[in-house]
């Protein structure tokens, strides 16, 4: 409770400080809209040309796109401390400042940044979800809403875990941005489309190693009434938890790695 209060207090302060530069803030928010709008346009063109991809119709594709966008950009908005700052904090030794305060490192990193400019990306994703839901004629039930919330939450936690890998590399002073980006931003771009459209190596990568398919596609497909892999209902509820497991493993690695943390300079 206390931690949440600290997080909200930090967010208020960070947003106020970003609004110190209002024009820059406005323009960047607009730029985000153009960027994410472009991504959405790709799906629109695809649907316009092919009408369907395997068993997935236009509505389904919009829905999957929206699910990924909302999840990814909510994470980038509220978890900016981890998705944007964490490697930088480790590399420059700024993490020292957090280590000398009586709060968890993860709490403080989460409290160190917020990115409200992503609001436009989230809006685009939200629009895609609504359009997709309408076109695919989803009959919403309480269970489906709950499952979608679970998917978004677990997906976010998975994404935080993926970004944290880079911070671990930074402890050993290895530059690895490209490698990790393939999983984070690459994962986002790839998994805007349902997993079964990909060849086997990619399916394995995004199901077993970076389980976007388990956190987002399995519940998404069930909501659309076309269960993936022919899994039973209980498995659909369990599957997104893989995102939390993934995060937990990475967090464990990070804490182990921190023993080798060397800080920098004087």
């Amino acid at each position: 409770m206390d931690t949440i209060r600290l997080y909200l207090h930090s967010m208020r302060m960070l947003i106020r400080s970003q609004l110190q530069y209002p024009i820059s803030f406005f323009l960047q928010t607009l730029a985000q809209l153009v960027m994410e709008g472009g991504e959405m346009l790709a799906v629109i063109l695809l649907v316009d040309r092919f009408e369907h991809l395997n068993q997935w119709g236009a509505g389904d594709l919009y829905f999957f796109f929206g699910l990924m966008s909302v999840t990814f950009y909510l994470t980038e908005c509220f978890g900016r401390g981890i998705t944007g700052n964490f490697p930088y904090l480790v590399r420059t030794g700024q993490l020292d400042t957090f280590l000398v305060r009586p709060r968890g490192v993860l709490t403080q990193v989460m409290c160190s940044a917020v990115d409200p400019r992503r609001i436009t990306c989230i809006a685009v994703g939200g629009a895609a979800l609504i359009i997709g839901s309408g076109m695919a004629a989803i009959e919403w039930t309480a269970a489906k809403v709950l499952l979608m919330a679970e998917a978004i939450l677990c997906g976010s936690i998975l994404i935080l875990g993926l970004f944290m890998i880079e911070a671990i590399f930074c402890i050993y002073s290895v530059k690895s941005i490209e490698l990790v980006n393939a999983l984070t931003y690459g994962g986002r771009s790839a998994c805007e489309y349902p997993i079964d459209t990909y060849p086997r190596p990619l399916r394995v990568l995004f199901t077993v190693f970076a389980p976007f398919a388990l956190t987002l596609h399995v519940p998404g497909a069930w909501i659309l009434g076309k269960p993936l892999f022919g899994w039973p209902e209980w498995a659909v509820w369990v599957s997104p938890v893989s995102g939390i497991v993934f995060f937990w493993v990475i967090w464990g690695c990070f804490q182990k790695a921190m023993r080798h943390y060397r800080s920098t300079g004087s």
Partner: protein
Amino acid sequence: MSYICVRDLEKRFVIREKRKKGALLREKKTVRALQEVSFDVDQGELLGYIGPNGAGKSTTVKILSGILTPDGGEVTVGGRVPWQERKEHVRQIGVVFGQRTQLWWDVPIRDSYDLLKDIYRISPEDYRTRLAELTEALQLGDLMRTPLRQLSLGQRMRAELCGSLLHRPELLFLDEPTIGLDAVSKLGLREFLQWENKQQGTTILLTTHDMEDIVALCPRVMVLGHGQKLFDGSLAALLGRYDTIRTVTVSYEEAEAAPELPSGIPVSREGKNLTITYSPDEYATAEMIARLQAAGTVRELTVQPQNIDRLVAAMYREMDL
């Protein structure tokens, strides 16, 4: 047992060096940043920690503040092992890094303090009294609503100090606090540190390259070089060992004054002014002054001990640092 207790502290860093042939193969070199360092500090002490760049000062501070895990030895601060009980430990300490800010860049410093209040879980009453006290002592009243980025370096250091002392730490670490400050800011800062040490009983450990800081503040000084402790004691005792030169400047009323001095003492003359240098071990200063006065009417006379920075440089040289 003393408040800070350090026994045989060891820290090694592995440095990877690029070898000429083959970009993938790197040679590893182990640097012993700290070797068997031991010392004790009692509560309420003000301890200066000096040594050339790369001696291991910051590494010691980082281990004592729980940032780094050592490779050997024992450390307790107030009975706690810093890196094992990090959260309990850091609640009782304050740290100011001279070149790294702990406040938030774009917001008024008062907003930063409000957030620190939540981070350290300071009660509202405690916060109010402590903030008022520090605001007055550090003269921050007019700056509270100014964003950190608009403060001068001196103002910023005061703001940092306030932030690191809000939770009333038992122990304060200062890493080169006077670096880059002007004379007025330096004097103000030293005065404040003395006040904090005396009035609040805060134990202060200070690393610096500015010997004036040590002269003004620290009854006890510790010298570190190549990761080893080389000296621990009073500043006077340290300087006594290397204090080997006196410089006397004298101005006479008449131009032709020529004092009789023992042979071998270098004399330089500039009109009516004479400068001589000698070792206080060989000649008593009183005798020198008597000889100078005997030669003519003295208008002005100053005796200077060796410049303290030179002393320290000589000391580092002799210690082969």
